[in-house]
Protein backbone atom coordinates (compact mmCIF):
# COMPACT_ATOMS: atom_id res chain seq x y z
CA UNK A 1 0.00 0.00 0.00
CA UNK A 2 2.73 2.43 1.02
CA UNK A 3 4.75 1.64 -2.10
CA UNK A 4 1.63 2.22 -4.16
CA UNK A 5 1.11 5.66 -2.64
CA UNK A 6 4.77 6.51 -3.12
CA UNK A 7 4.68 5.31 -6.71
CA UNK A 8 1.63 7.40 -7.48
CA UNK A 9 3.19 10.46 -5.85
CA UNK A 10 6.30 9.95 -7.94
CA UNK A 11 4.21 9.85 -11.11
CA UNK A 12 2.42 13.01 -10.03
CA UNK A 13 5.66 15.00 -10.10
CA UNK A 14 6.39 14.66 -13.84
CA UNK A 15 2.71 15.28 -14.58
CA UNK A 16 2.86 18.54 -12.68
CA UNK A 17 6.10 19.47 -14.40
CA UNK A 18 4.54 18.80 -17.80
CA UNK A 19 1.62 20.99 -16.82
CA UNK A 20 3.87 23.83 -15.66
CA UNK A 21 6.13 23.65 -18.71
CA UNK A 22 3.14 23.36 -21.03
CA UNK A 23 1.37 26.41 -19.66
CA UNK A 24 4.63 28.31 -19.56
CA UNK A 25 5.34 27.55 -23.21
CA UNK A 26 1.82 28.69 -24.08
CA UNK A 27 2.37 31.94 -22.27
CA UNK A 28 5.81 32.44 -23.79
CA UNK A 29 4.58 31.92 -27.35
CA UNK A 30 1.55 34.13 -26.85
CA UNK A 31 1.58 37.04 -29.26
CA UNK A 32 1.50 40.53 -27.77
CA UNK A 33 2.67 41.71 -24.42
CA UNK A 34 0.57 42.04 -21.28
CA UNK A 35 1.84 45.60 -20.99
CA UNK A 36 0.77 46.66 -24.47
CA UNK A 37 -1.83 49.40 -24.47
CA UNK A 38 -3.71 50.92 -27.34
CA UNK A 39 -1.64 54.07 -27.28
CA UNK A 40 1.61 52.17 -27.12
CA UNK A 41 4.40 52.52 -24.60
CA UNK A 42 7.81 54.07 -25.28
CA UNK A 43 10.31 51.25 -25.95
CA UNK A 44 12.47 52.31 -23.01
CA UNK A 45 9.56 52.01 -20.57
CA UNK A 46 8.57 48.67 -22.04
CA UNK A 47 12.13 47.40 -21.69
CA UNK A 48 12.16 48.51 -18.08
CA UNK A 49 8.87 46.77 -17.36
CA UNK A 50 10.04 43.58 -19.01
CA UNK A 51 13.27 43.70 -17.07
CA UNK A 52 11.37 44.17 -13.84
CA UNK A 53 9.28 41.06 -14.47
CA UNK A 54 12.25 39.15 -15.85
CA UNK A 55 10.72 38.86 -19.30
CA UNK A 56 13.95 39.97 -21.01
CA UNK A 57 15.74 36.82 -19.86
CA UNK A 58 16.15 33.82 -22.16
CA UNK A 59 13.35 31.26 -22.15
CA UNK A 60 15.24 28.66 -20.13
CA UNK A 61 16.10 31.14 -17.39
CA UNK A 62 12.52 32.34 -17.15
CA UNK A 63 11.05 28.88 -16.87
CA UNK A 64 13.72 27.79 -14.41
CA UNK A 65 13.00 30.77 -12.18
CA UNK A 66 9.27 30.07 -12.36
CA UNK A 67 9.62 26.43 -11.35
CA UNK A 68 12.15 27.20 -8.63
CA UNK A 69 9.87 29.90 -7.27
CA UNK A 70 6.96 27.48 -7.03
CA UNK A 71 8.93 24.61 -5.59
CA UNK A 72 11.01 26.44 -3.03
CA UNK A 73 8.81 29.32 -1.91
CA UNK A 74 5.38 28.34 -3.27
CA UNK A 75 5.55 31.63 -5.14
CA UNK A 76 3.56 31.80 -8.37
CA UNK A 77 5.09 35.08 -9.44
CA UNK A 78 3.59 38.51 -9.95
CA UNK A 79 0.36 39.50 -11.60
CA UNK A 80 0.98 41.51 -14.75
CA UNK A 81 -2.15 43.58 -14.41
CA UNK A 82 -2.67 44.19 -10.71
CA UNK A 83 0.67 45.79 -10.06
CA UNK A 84 0.47 45.77 -6.28
CA UNK A 85 -0.67 42.17 -5.91
CA UNK A 86 0.98 38.92 -6.80
CA UNK A 87 -0.67 35.67 -7.81
CA UNK A 88 -0.50 34.26 -4.30
CA UNK A 89 -2.53 37.18 -2.95
CA UNK A 90 -5.24 36.71 -5.55
CA UNK A 91 -5.41 32.97 -4.99
CA UNK A 92 -5.43 33.44 -1.23
CA UNK A 93 -8.33 35.82 -1.64
CA UNK A 94 -10.44 33.65 -3.93
CA UNK A 95 -9.61 30.12 -2.92
CA UNK A 96 -11.40 30.00 0.47
CA UNK A 97 -14.62 31.06 -1.24
CA UNK A 98 -14.28 28.42 -3.95
CA UNK A 99 -13.44 25.83 -1.35
CA UNK A 100 -16.49 26.70 0.77
CA UNK A 101 -19.14 26.25 -1.86
CA UNK A 102 -17.13 23.51 -3.57
CA UNK A 103 -17.04 21.34 -0.47
CA UNK A 104 -20.72 21.95 0.24
CA UNK A 105 -21.63 21.05 -3.33
CA UNK A 106 -19.55 17.92 -3.08
CA UNK A 107 -21.28 16.84 0.13
CA UNK A 108 -24.74 17.60 -1.26
CA UNK A 109 -24.04 15.80 -4.54
CA UNK A 110 -22.70 12.67 -2.86
CA UNK A 111 -25.32 12.44 -0.11
CA UNK A 112 -28.40 13.31 -2.16
CA UNK A 113 -27.25 11.54 -5.32
CA UNK A 114 -26.13 8.41 -3.48
CA UNK A 115 -29.32 8.18 -1.43
CA UNK A 116 -31.49 8.75 -4.48
CA UNK A 117 -29.68 6.08 -6.50
CA UNK A 118 -29.72 3.47 -3.73
CA UNK A 119 -33.38 4.10 -2.93
CA UNK A 120 -34.31 3.87 -6.60
CA UNK A 121 -32.52 0.53 -6.91
CA UNK A 122 -34.02 -0.92 -3.73
CA UNK A 123 -37.50 0.14 -4.81
CA UNK A 124 -36.86 -0.87 -8.41
CA UNK A 125 -39.77 -0.21 -10.80
CA UNK A 126 -41.87 1.69 -8.29
CA UNK A 127 -42.85 5.37 -8.46
CA UNK A 128 -39.79 6.18 -6.39
CA UNK A 129 -37.54 4.60 -8.99
CA UNK A 130 -39.22 6.47 -11.84
CA UNK A 131 -39.02 9.72 -9.90
CA UNK A 132 -35.31 9.25 -9.23
CA UNK A 133 -34.59 8.37 -12.86
CA UNK A 134 -36.67 11.34 -14.01
CA UNK A 135 -34.80 13.71 -11.73
CA UNK A 136 -31.42 12.41 -12.80
CA UNK A 137 -32.21 12.67 -16.52
CA UNK A 138 -33.63 16.15 -16.02
CA UNK A 139 -30.60 17.26 -14.07
CA UNK A 140 -28.26 15.87 -16.70
CA UNK A 141 -29.41 18.30 -19.38
CA UNK A 142 -29.00 21.25 -17.03
CA UNK A 143 -25.29 21.98 -16.68
CA UNK A 144 -24.41 24.64 -14.13
CA UNK A 145 -24.29 27.53 -16.58
CA UNK A 146 -27.85 26.72 -17.66
CA UNK A 147 -29.15 26.00 -14.18
CA UNK A 148 -27.70 29.17 -12.66
CA UNK A 149 -29.88 31.61 -14.64
CA UNK A 150 -32.95 29.44 -14.10
CA UNK A 151 -32.35 29.39 -10.34
CA UNK A 152 -31.91 33.14 -10.22
CA UNK A 153 -35.02 33.57 -12.34
CA UNK A 154 -37.15 31.42 -10.01
CA UNK A 155 -35.75 32.07 -6.55
CA UNK A 156 -34.67 35.67 -6.89
CA UNK A 157 -36.82 37.33 -9.52
CA UNK A 158 -40.10 35.44 -9.17
CA UNK A 159 -40.13 34.28 -5.55
CA UNK A 160 -37.67 36.74 -4.05
CA UNK A 161 -36.49 34.23 -1.44
CA UNK A 162 -32.75 34.24 -1.98
CA UNK A 163 -30.22 36.81 -3.14
CA UNK A 164 -29.14 36.37 -6.75
CA UNK A 165 -25.47 37.02 -6.15
CA UNK A 166 -22.78 38.21 -3.80
CA UNK A 167 -20.97 36.38 -1.07
CA UNK A 168 -21.05 38.47 2.12
CA UNK A 169 -18.44 36.36 3.86
CA UNK A 170 -20.34 33.17 3.14
CA UNK A 171 -23.66 33.72 4.92
CA UNK A 172 -25.95 30.77 4.31
CA UNK A 173 -28.47 32.48 2.06
CA UNK A 174 -25.67 33.48 -0.29
CA UNK A 175 -24.29 29.95 -0.42
CA UNK A 176 -27.50 28.06 -1.25
CA UNK A 177 -27.98 28.97 -4.91
CA UNK A 178 -24.32 28.46 -5.89
CA UNK A 179 -24.33 25.08 -4.20
CA UNK A 180 -27.52 23.97 -5.95
CA UNK A 181 -26.28 25.20 -9.31
CA UNK A 182 -22.92 23.49 -8.92
CA UNK A 183 -24.03 20.19 -7.42
CA UNK A 184 -27.11 19.28 -9.46
CA UNK A 185 -25.57 17.67 -12.52
CA UNK A 186 -23.05 15.73 -10.40
CA UNK A 187 -25.85 14.64 -8.11
CA UNK A 188 -27.64 13.29 -11.17
CA UNK A 189 -24.58 11.37 -12.36
CA UNK A 190 -23.96 9.92 -8.91
CA UNK A 191 -27.61 8.87 -8.65
CA UNK A 192 -27.43 7.17 -12.04
CA UNK A 193 -24.19 5.36 -11.28
CA UNK A 194 -25.21 4.20 -7.81
CA UNK A 195 -28.61 3.02 -9.05
CA UNK A 196 -27.08 0.96 -11.83
CA UNK A 197 -24.44 -0.64 -9.63
CA UNK A 198 -26.88 -1.27 -6.76
CA UNK A 199 -29.26 -3.02 -9.17
CA UNK A 200 -26.42 -5.22 -10.34
CA UNK A 201 -25.33 -6.01 -6.79
CA UNK A 202 -28.87 -6.81 -5.65
CA UNK A 203 -29.22 -9.52 -8.30
CA UNK A 204 -25.90 -11.16 -7.46
CA UNK A 205 -25.53 -14.52 -5.75
CA UNK A 206 -24.22 -13.43 -2.39
CA UNK A 207 -27.24 -11.19 -1.85
CA UNK A 208 -29.53 -14.09 -2.68
CA UNK A 209 -27.65 -16.20 -0.16
CA UNK A 210 -27.94 -13.50 2.48
CA UNK A 211 -31.67 -13.27 1.94
CA UNK A 212 -32.04 -17.05 1.77
CA UNK A 213 -30.57 -17.47 5.20
CA UNK A 214 -33.24 -15.14 6.48
CA UNK A 215 -31.49 -11.82 7.03
CA UNK A 216 -33.84 -8.85 7.15
CA UNK A 217 -33.76 -6.72 4.01
CA UNK A 218 -32.42 -3.70 5.89
CA UNK A 219 -29.44 -5.65 7.10
CA UNK A 220 -28.81 -7.16 3.68
CA UNK A 221 -28.70 -3.72 2.11
CA UNK A 222 -26.60 -1.96 4.71
CA UNK A 223 -24.20 -4.78 5.58
CA UNK A 224 -23.78 -6.54 2.28
CA UNK A 225 -24.99 -4.58 -0.72
CA UNK A 226 -23.99 -1.01 0.04
CA UNK A 227 -20.23 -1.34 0.02
CA UNK A 228 -19.76 -3.02 -3.37
CA UNK A 229 -22.50 -0.84 -4.84
CA UNK A 230 -20.68 2.35 -3.89
CA UNK A 231 -17.37 1.39 -5.52
CA UNK A 232 -18.19 2.83 -8.97
CA UNK A 233 -19.40 5.99 -7.24
CA UNK A 234 -16.01 6.41 -5.61
CA UNK A 235 -14.22 6.16 -8.93
CA UNK A 236 -16.53 8.89 -10.23
CA UNK A 237 -15.57 11.24 -7.38
CA UNK A 238 -12.30 12.18 -9.10
CA UNK A 239 -13.94 13.50 -12.28
CA UNK A 240 -16.72 15.05 -10.18
CA UNK A 241 -14.19 16.99 -8.17
CA UNK A 242 -12.52 18.28 -11.33
CA UNK A 243 -15.90 19.25 -12.70
CA UNK A 244 -16.72 21.20 -9.59
CA UNK A 245 -13.47 23.11 -9.77
CA UNK A 246 -14.14 23.94 -13.40
CA UNK A 247 -17.73 24.78 -12.57
CA UNK A 248 -16.55 27.37 -10.11
CA UNK A 249 -15.77 29.56 -13.13
CA UNK A 250 -19.47 29.71 -13.97
CA UNK A 251 -20.57 30.09 -10.36
CA UNK A 252 -18.18 32.96 -9.76
CA UNK A 253 -19.22 34.79 -12.89
CA UNK A 254 -22.88 34.23 -12.41
CA UNK A 255 -23.25 34.77 -8.68
CA UNK A 256 -20.33 37.20 -8.26
CA UNK A 257 -19.09 35.06 -5.39
CA UNK A 258 -15.51 36.24 -5.80
CA UNK A 259 -13.95 32.78 -5.94
CA UNK A 260 -10.95 31.66 -7.87
CA UNK A 261 -12.86 31.17 -11.12
CA UNK A 262 -13.58 34.88 -11.28
CA UNK A 263 -9.89 35.69 -11.23
CA UNK A 264 -9.25 33.06 -13.85
CA UNK A 265 -11.68 34.48 -16.36
CA UNK A 266 -10.73 38.07 -15.58
CA UNK A 267 -7.08 37.21 -16.12
CA UNK A 268 -7.93 35.37 -19.33
CA UNK A 269 -9.68 38.43 -20.70
CA UNK A 270 -6.92 40.79 -19.50
CA UNK A 271 -4.13 38.54 -20.73
CA UNK A 272 -2.79 38.42 -17.22
CA UNK A 273 -0.78 35.28 -17.94
CA UNK A 274 0.82 35.08 -14.52
CA UNK A 275 -2.53 34.67 -12.79
CA UNK A 276 -3.84 32.26 -15.42
CA UNK A 277 -0.83 30.03 -15.11
CA UNK A 278 -0.86 30.15 -11.34
CA UNK A 279 -4.47 29.05 -11.18
CA UNK A 280 -4.03 26.37 -13.85
CA UNK A 281 -1.03 24.90 -12.06
CA UNK A 282 -2.68 25.06 -8.64
CA UNK A 283 -5.87 23.40 -9.85
CA UNK A 284 -3.87 20.82 -11.78
CA UNK A 285 -2.00 19.94 -8.61
CA UNK A 286 -5.28 19.69 -6.70
CA UNK A 287 -6.78 17.48 -9.38
CA UNK A 288 -3.83 15.12 -9.35
CA UNK A 289 -3.85 14.99 -5.56
CA UNK A 290 -7.55 14.30 -5.42
CA UNK A 291 -7.38 11.54 -8.01
CA UNK A 292 -4.66 9.99 -5.90
CA UNK A 293 -6.84 10.14 -2.78
CA UNK A 294 -9.70 8.53 -4.69
CA UNK A 295 -7.44 5.73 -5.92
CA UNK A 296 -6.18 5.06 -2.41
CA UNK A 297 -9.73 5.07 -1.06
CA UNK A 298 -10.71 2.65 -3.79
CA UNK A 299 -7.90 0.26 -2.98
CA UNK A 300 -8.73 0.48 0.70
CA UNK A 301 -12.42 -0.37 0.25
CA UNK A 302 -12.12 -2.98 -2.50
CA UNK A 303 -10.17 -6.00 -1.26
CA UNK A 304 -9.93 -7.33 -4.82
CA UNK A 305 -7.51 -4.56 -5.75
CA UNK A 306 -3.94 -5.21 -4.72
CA UNK A 307 -1.10 -2.93 -5.56
Amino acid at each position, binding site marked *: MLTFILKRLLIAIPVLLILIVGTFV*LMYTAPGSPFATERGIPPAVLANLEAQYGLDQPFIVQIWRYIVGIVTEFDFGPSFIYRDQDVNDLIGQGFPVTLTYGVWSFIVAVLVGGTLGILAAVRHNTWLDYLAVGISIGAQVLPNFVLAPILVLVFTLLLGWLPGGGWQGGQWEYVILPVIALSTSFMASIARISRASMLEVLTSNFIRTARAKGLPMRRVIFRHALKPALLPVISYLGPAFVGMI*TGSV*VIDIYFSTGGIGQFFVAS*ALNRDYGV*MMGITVLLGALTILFNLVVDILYAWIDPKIRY
Partner: protein
Amino acid sequence: MLATKAIADDLAGAAPIKGRSLWADARARFFRNKAAVAGLFVLVCVAAFALFGPLIATWNYEDIDWTVLGNVAEAGRPSLENGHWFGTDALGRDLFARTAQGTQVSLMVGIVGALISVIVGTFYGAVAGYFGGRIDGVMMRVVDVLMSIPYMFVLILLLVVFGRSMLMLFIGIGLVSWLDMARIARGQTLTLRNKEFVEAAVATGVGPFTIIRRHIVPNLLGVVIVYATLLVPSMIIYESFISFLGLGVQEPLTSWGALINDGAAEMNNGTLWMLLVPLFFFVITLFGFFFVGDGLRDALDPKDR
Protein backbone atom coordinates in the same frame (compact mmCIF):
# COMPACT_ATOMS: atom_id res chain seq x y z
CA MET B 1 -39.36 -42.54 -43.07
CA LEU B 2 -42.34 -40.98 -44.73
CA ALA B 3 -42.53 -38.36 -42.08
CA THR B 4 -38.93 -37.28 -42.54
CA LYS B 5 -39.44 -37.12 -46.27
CA ALA B 6 -42.46 -34.92 -45.81
CA ILE B 7 -40.44 -32.63 -43.60
CA ALA B 8 -37.62 -32.55 -46.11
CA ASP B 9 -40.09 -31.67 -48.87
CA ASP B 10 -41.55 -28.97 -46.70
CA LEU B 11 -38.13 -27.52 -46.11
CA ALA B 12 -37.26 -27.63 -49.77
CA GLY B 13 -40.50 -25.91 -50.67
CA ALA B 14 -40.17 -23.18 -48.08
CA ALA B 15 -38.62 -19.88 -49.00
CA PRO B 16 -34.89 -19.75 -48.30
CA ILE B 17 -34.36 -18.59 -44.73
CA LYS B 18 -32.92 -15.12 -44.56
CA GLY B 19 -30.20 -14.55 -42.01
CA ARG B 20 -30.73 -11.67 -39.67
CA SER B 21 -27.61 -9.63 -39.28
CA LEU B 22 -26.57 -8.17 -35.96
CA TRP B 23 -27.32 -4.71 -37.28
CA ALA B 24 -30.82 -5.60 -38.48
CA ASP B 25 -31.55 -7.05 -35.06
CA ALA B 26 -30.26 -3.95 -33.37
CA ARG B 27 -32.30 -1.73 -35.68
CA ALA B 28 -35.47 -3.61 -34.86
CA ARG B 29 -34.75 -3.32 -31.14
CA PHE B 30 -34.01 0.36 -31.45
CA PHE B 31 -37.27 1.15 -33.24
CA ARG B 32 -39.26 -0.74 -30.60
CA ASN B 33 -37.92 1.68 -27.99
CA LYS B 34 -40.39 4.57 -27.92
CA ALA B 35 -38.20 7.01 -25.98
CA ALA B 36 -35.33 6.47 -28.40
CA VAL B 37 -37.53 6.98 -31.46
CA ALA B 38 -38.99 10.14 -29.91
CA GLY B 39 -35.45 11.33 -29.22
CA LEU B 40 -34.45 10.64 -32.81
CA PHE B 41 -37.50 12.54 -34.04
CA VAL B 42 -36.59 15.56 -31.89
CA LEU B 43 -33.03 15.47 -33.20
CA VAL B 44 -34.21 15.34 -36.80
CA CYS B 45 -36.46 18.34 -36.13
CA VAL B 46 -33.63 20.31 -34.54
CA ALA B 47 -31.31 19.45 -37.42
CA ALA B 48 -33.97 20.53 -39.90
CA PHE B 49 -34.37 23.78 -37.98
CA ALA B 50 -30.63 24.37 -38.16
CA LEU B 51 -30.52 23.62 -41.89
CA PHE B 52 -33.66 25.31 -43.13
CA GLY B 53 -34.30 27.87 -40.38
CA PRO B 54 -32.01 30.51 -41.92
CA LEU B 55 -33.74 30.04 -45.29
CA ILE B 56 -37.27 30.68 -44.05
CA ALA B 57 -36.33 33.38 -41.56
CA THR B 58 -37.47 36.84 -42.67
CA TRP B 59 -34.43 38.46 -41.11
CA ASN B 60 -30.73 37.85 -41.34
CA TYR B 61 -29.01 36.74 -38.13
CA GLU B 62 -26.70 39.77 -38.06
CA ASP B 63 -29.02 42.54 -39.21
CA ILE B 64 -30.33 44.94 -36.61
CA ASP B 65 -34.02 45.88 -36.76
CA TRP B 66 -33.78 49.60 -36.06
CA THR B 67 -37.52 49.93 -35.47
CA VAL B 68 -37.18 47.66 -32.46
CA LEU B 69 -33.95 48.94 -31.02
CA GLY B 70 -34.35 51.00 -27.88
CA ASN B 71 -37.68 49.43 -27.06
CA VAL B 72 -36.82 45.76 -27.20
CA ALA B 73 -38.92 44.81 -24.15
CA GLU B 74 -42.07 45.98 -25.98
CA ALA B 75 -41.46 45.93 -29.71
CA GLY B 76 -39.05 43.00 -29.67
CA ARG B 77 -41.55 40.50 -28.30
CA PRO B 78 -42.12 37.32 -30.27
CA SER B 79 -44.78 38.14 -32.83
CA LEU B 80 -45.92 36.98 -36.24
CA GLU B 81 -46.55 40.46 -37.60
CA ASN B 82 -43.07 41.94 -37.80
CA GLY B 83 -41.41 38.64 -38.68
CA HIS B 84 -39.57 38.18 -35.38
CA TRP B 85 -41.18 34.82 -34.56
CA PHE B 86 -38.97 34.28 -31.53
CA GLY B 87 -38.61 37.99 -30.77
CA THR B 88 -35.32 39.86 -30.98
CA ASP B 89 -32.22 39.97 -28.84
CA ALA B 90 -31.10 42.99 -26.85
CA LEU B 91 -29.58 44.58 -29.95
CA GLY B 92 -32.70 44.15 -32.03
CA ARG B 93 -31.45 41.19 -34.04
CA ASP B 94 -33.94 38.50 -34.99
CA LEU B 95 -33.80 35.68 -32.48
CA PHE B 96 -35.25 33.08 -34.84
CA ALA B 97 -32.42 33.54 -37.30
CA ARG B 98 -29.85 33.77 -34.52
CA THR B 99 -31.10 30.64 -32.82
CA ALA B 100 -31.01 28.77 -36.11
CA GLN B 101 -27.46 29.96 -36.69
CA GLY B 102 -26.45 29.13 -33.11
CA THR B 103 -27.96 25.66 -33.52
CA GLN B 104 -25.77 25.13 -36.58
CA VAL B 105 -22.64 26.05 -34.65
CA SER B 106 -23.51 24.01 -31.56
CA LEU B 107 -24.50 20.91 -33.51
CA MET B 108 -21.42 21.16 -35.69
CA VAL B 109 -19.10 21.47 -32.70
CA GLY B 110 -20.82 18.53 -31.03
CA ILE B 111 -20.60 16.29 -34.06
CA VAL B 112 -17.09 17.25 -35.12
CA GLY B 113 -15.83 16.89 -31.54
CA ALA B 114 -17.40 13.46 -31.26
CA LEU B 115 -16.01 12.49 -34.66
CA ILE B 116 -12.45 13.46 -33.71
CA SER B 117 -12.76 11.49 -30.53
CA VAL B 118 -14.17 8.47 -32.34
CA ILE B 119 -11.43 8.37 -34.98
CA VAL B 120 -8.45 9.19 -32.78
CA GLY B 121 -9.66 7.41 -29.65
CA THR B 122 -10.68 4.19 -31.35
CA PHE B 123 -7.42 3.74 -33.22
CA TYR B 124 -5.30 4.77 -30.25
CA GLY B 125 -7.13 2.40 -27.94
CA ALA B 126 -7.17 -0.43 -30.48
CA VAL B 127 -3.43 -0.14 -31.12
CA ALA B 128 -2.62 0.02 -27.42
CA GLY B 129 -4.87 -2.91 -26.60
CA TYR B 130 -3.75 -5.04 -29.52
CA PHE B 131 -0.01 -4.73 -28.99
CA GLY B 132 -0.23 -4.82 -25.21
CA GLY B 133 2.85 -5.05 -23.04
CA ARG B 134 5.16 -2.09 -22.86
CA ILE B 135 3.55 -0.21 -25.77
CA ASP B 136 0.20 -0.46 -24.01
CA GLY B 137 1.75 0.69 -20.75
CA VAL B 138 3.33 3.77 -22.28
CA MET B 139 0.31 4.70 -24.38
CA MET B 140 -2.11 4.40 -21.49
CA ARG B 141 0.21 6.28 -19.17
CA VAL B 142 0.09 9.17 -21.65
CA VAL B 143 -3.71 9.05 -21.47
CA ASP B 144 -3.58 9.06 -17.67
CA VAL B 145 -1.29 12.08 -17.67
CA LEU B 146 -3.49 14.01 -20.10
CA MET B 147 -6.57 13.12 -18.10
CA SER B 148 -5.23 14.54 -14.88
CA ILE B 149 -4.81 17.99 -16.45
CA PRO B 150 -7.69 20.40 -15.86
CA TYR B 151 -8.45 20.53 -19.57
CA MET B 152 -11.09 23.24 -19.37
CA PHE B 153 -8.53 25.68 -18.04
CA VAL B 154 -6.01 24.62 -20.64
CA LEU B 155 -8.64 25.05 -23.34
CA ILE B 156 -9.41 28.57 -22.11
CA LEU B 157 -5.67 29.25 -22.03
CA LEU B 158 -5.38 28.04 -25.65
CA LEU B 159 -8.27 30.20 -26.79
CA VAL B 160 -6.85 33.28 -25.10
CA VAL B 161 -3.29 32.77 -26.25
CA PHE B 162 -3.95 31.82 -29.87
CA GLY B 163 -7.02 33.91 -30.36
CA ARG B 164 -10.62 32.84 -30.50
CA SER B 165 -11.48 30.89 -33.61
CA MET B 166 -13.56 27.94 -34.66
CA LEU B 167 -10.43 26.01 -35.54
CA MET B 168 -8.89 26.56 -32.11
CA LEU B 169 -12.13 25.46 -30.49
CA PHE B 170 -12.10 22.24 -32.49
CA ILE B 171 -8.43 21.60 -31.71
CA GLY B 172 -8.99 22.27 -28.02
CA ILE B 173 -12.05 20.08 -27.77
CA GLY B 174 -10.46 17.42 -29.94
CA LEU B 175 -7.39 17.37 -27.70
CA VAL B 176 -9.30 16.14 -24.68
CA SER B 177 -12.32 14.34 -26.05
CA TRP B 178 -10.58 11.20 -27.30
CA LEU B 179 -9.16 10.12 -23.94
CA ASP B 180 -12.22 8.30 -22.61
CA MET B 181 -12.82 6.73 -25.98
CA ALA B 182 -9.25 5.42 -26.08
CA ARG B 183 -9.76 3.72 -22.71
CA ILE B 184 -13.03 2.12 -23.75
CA ALA B 185 -11.63 0.92 -27.08
CA ARG B 186 -8.56 -0.50 -25.36
CA GLY B 187 -10.63 -2.43 -22.84
CA GLN B 188 -12.71 -3.99 -25.61
CA THR B 189 -9.65 -4.77 -27.72
CA LEU B 190 -8.03 -6.63 -24.84
CA THR B 191 -10.84 -9.21 -24.95
CA LEU B 192 -11.10 -9.24 -28.76
CA ARG B 193 -7.41 -9.89 -29.22
CA ASN B 194 -7.70 -13.42 -27.82
CA LYS B 195 -10.62 -14.44 -30.03
CA GLU B 196 -10.20 -17.21 -32.57
CA PHE B 197 -10.73 -15.05 -35.63
CA VAL B 198 -7.80 -12.86 -34.67
CA GLU B 199 -5.69 -15.93 -34.09
CA ALA B 200 -6.75 -17.21 -37.51
CA ALA B 201 -5.79 -13.93 -39.10
CA VAL B 202 -2.39 -14.01 -37.41
CA ALA B 203 -1.91 -17.62 -38.53
CA THR B 204 -2.61 -16.72 -42.16
CA GLY B 205 0.04 -14.02 -41.98
CA VAL B 206 -2.02 -10.85 -41.83
CA GLY B 207 -0.08 -7.84 -40.54
CA PRO B 208 -0.96 -6.29 -37.21
CA PHE B 209 -2.30 -3.01 -38.60
CA THR B 210 -4.46 -4.82 -41.13
CA ILE B 211 -5.86 -6.95 -38.32
CA ILE B 212 -6.65 -3.85 -36.30
CA ARG B 213 -8.30 -2.20 -39.27
CA ARG B 214 -10.19 -5.19 -40.65
CA HIS B 215 -10.96 -7.28 -37.58
CA ILE B 216 -10.64 -5.29 -34.37
CA VAL B 217 -12.15 -1.91 -35.26
CA PRO B 218 -15.34 -3.28 -36.90
CA ASN B 219 -15.99 -5.28 -33.76
CA LEU B 220 -15.53 -2.19 -31.61
CA LEU B 221 -18.12 -0.24 -33.58
CA GLY B 222 -21.12 -1.07 -31.41
CA VAL B 223 -19.55 0.25 -28.22
CA VAL B 224 -18.00 3.18 -30.05
CA ILE B 225 -21.29 4.29 -31.61
CA VAL B 226 -23.11 4.16 -28.28
CA TYR B 227 -20.42 6.14 -26.58
CA ALA B 228 -20.22 8.64 -29.45
CA THR B 229 -23.92 9.50 -29.20
CA LEU B 230 -23.43 10.19 -25.52
CA LEU B 231 -20.31 12.21 -26.36
CA VAL B 232 -22.08 14.64 -28.68
CA PRO B 233 -24.13 16.23 -25.88
CA SER B 234 -21.09 16.59 -23.67
CA MET B 235 -19.23 18.29 -26.55
CA ILE B 236 -22.20 20.64 -26.95
CA ILE B 237 -22.05 21.37 -23.23
CA TYR B 238 -18.29 22.11 -23.45
CA GLU B 239 -18.79 24.50 -26.33
CA SER B 240 -21.72 26.20 -24.63
CA PHE B 241 -19.64 26.56 -21.49
CA ILE B 242 -16.83 28.20 -23.44
CA SER B 243 -19.30 30.46 -25.24
CA PHE B 244 -20.97 31.27 -21.93
CA LEU B 245 -17.64 32.64 -20.77
CA GLY B 246 -17.49 34.77 -23.89
CA LEU B 247 -14.55 32.83 -25.32
CA GLY B 248 -16.39 30.86 -27.97
CA VAL B 249 -17.42 31.89 -31.46
CA GLN B 250 -17.03 35.55 -32.38
CA GLU B 251 -19.92 37.96 -32.83
CA PRO B 252 -22.05 38.22 -34.90
CA LEU B 253 -21.82 34.43 -35.07
CA THR B 254 -23.39 32.80 -32.07
CA SER B 255 -24.11 29.48 -30.40
CA TRP B 256 -26.45 28.15 -27.76
CA GLY B 257 -24.10 28.96 -24.90
CA ALA B 258 -23.64 32.54 -26.09
CA LEU B 259 -27.40 32.96 -26.61
CA ILE B 260 -28.18 31.59 -23.16
CA ASN B 261 -25.59 33.88 -21.65
CA ASP B 262 -27.02 36.91 -23.47
CA GLY B 263 -30.53 35.97 -22.46
CA ALA B 264 -29.54 35.47 -18.84
CA ALA B 265 -27.88 38.88 -18.79
CA GLU B 266 -31.14 40.53 -19.90
CA MET B 267 -33.30 38.61 -17.44
CA ASN B 268 -34.05 41.64 -15.27
CA ASN B 269 -35.53 43.59 -18.17
CA GLY B 270 -38.58 41.42 -18.68
CA THR B 271 -37.32 39.92 -21.93
CA LEU B 272 -37.50 36.30 -20.88
CA TRP B 273 -37.85 34.93 -24.41
CA MET B 274 -34.18 35.72 -25.00
CA LEU B 275 -33.30 33.14 -22.35
CA LEU B 276 -36.08 30.63 -22.88
CA VAL B 277 -35.82 30.17 -26.65
CA PRO B 278 -32.17 29.02 -26.79
CA LEU B 279 -32.64 27.16 -23.50
CA PHE B 280 -35.52 25.20 -25.02
CA PHE B 281 -33.46 24.09 -28.02
CA PHE B 282 -30.47 23.28 -25.84
CA VAL B 283 -32.51 21.13 -23.46
CA ILE B 284 -34.55 19.21 -26.04
CA THR B 285 -31.44 18.43 -28.07
CA LEU B 286 -29.58 17.09 -25.05
CA PHE B 287 -32.64 15.04 -24.11
CA GLY B 288 -32.78 13.72 -27.66
CA PHE B 289 -29.15 12.64 -27.66
CA PHE B 290 -29.42 11.00 -24.25
CA PHE B 291 -32.52 9.02 -25.24
CA VAL B 292 -31.04 7.97 -28.57
CA GLY B 293 -27.81 6.98 -26.82
CA ASP B 294 -29.68 4.90 -24.25
CA GLY B 295 -31.76 3.31 -27.01
CA LEU B 296 -28.63 2.45 -28.98
CA ARG B 297 -27.00 0.97 -25.91
CA ASP B 298 -30.00 -1.26 -25.32
CA ALA B 299 -30.12 -2.17 -29.00
CA LEU B 300 -26.43 -2.99 -29.34
CA ASP B 301 -25.80 -4.46 -25.91
CA PRO B 302 -24.84 -8.10 -26.35
CA LYS B 303 -26.01 -8.89 -22.81
CA ASP B 304 -29.56 -8.31 -23.95
CA ARG B 305 -29.60 -11.26 -26.37
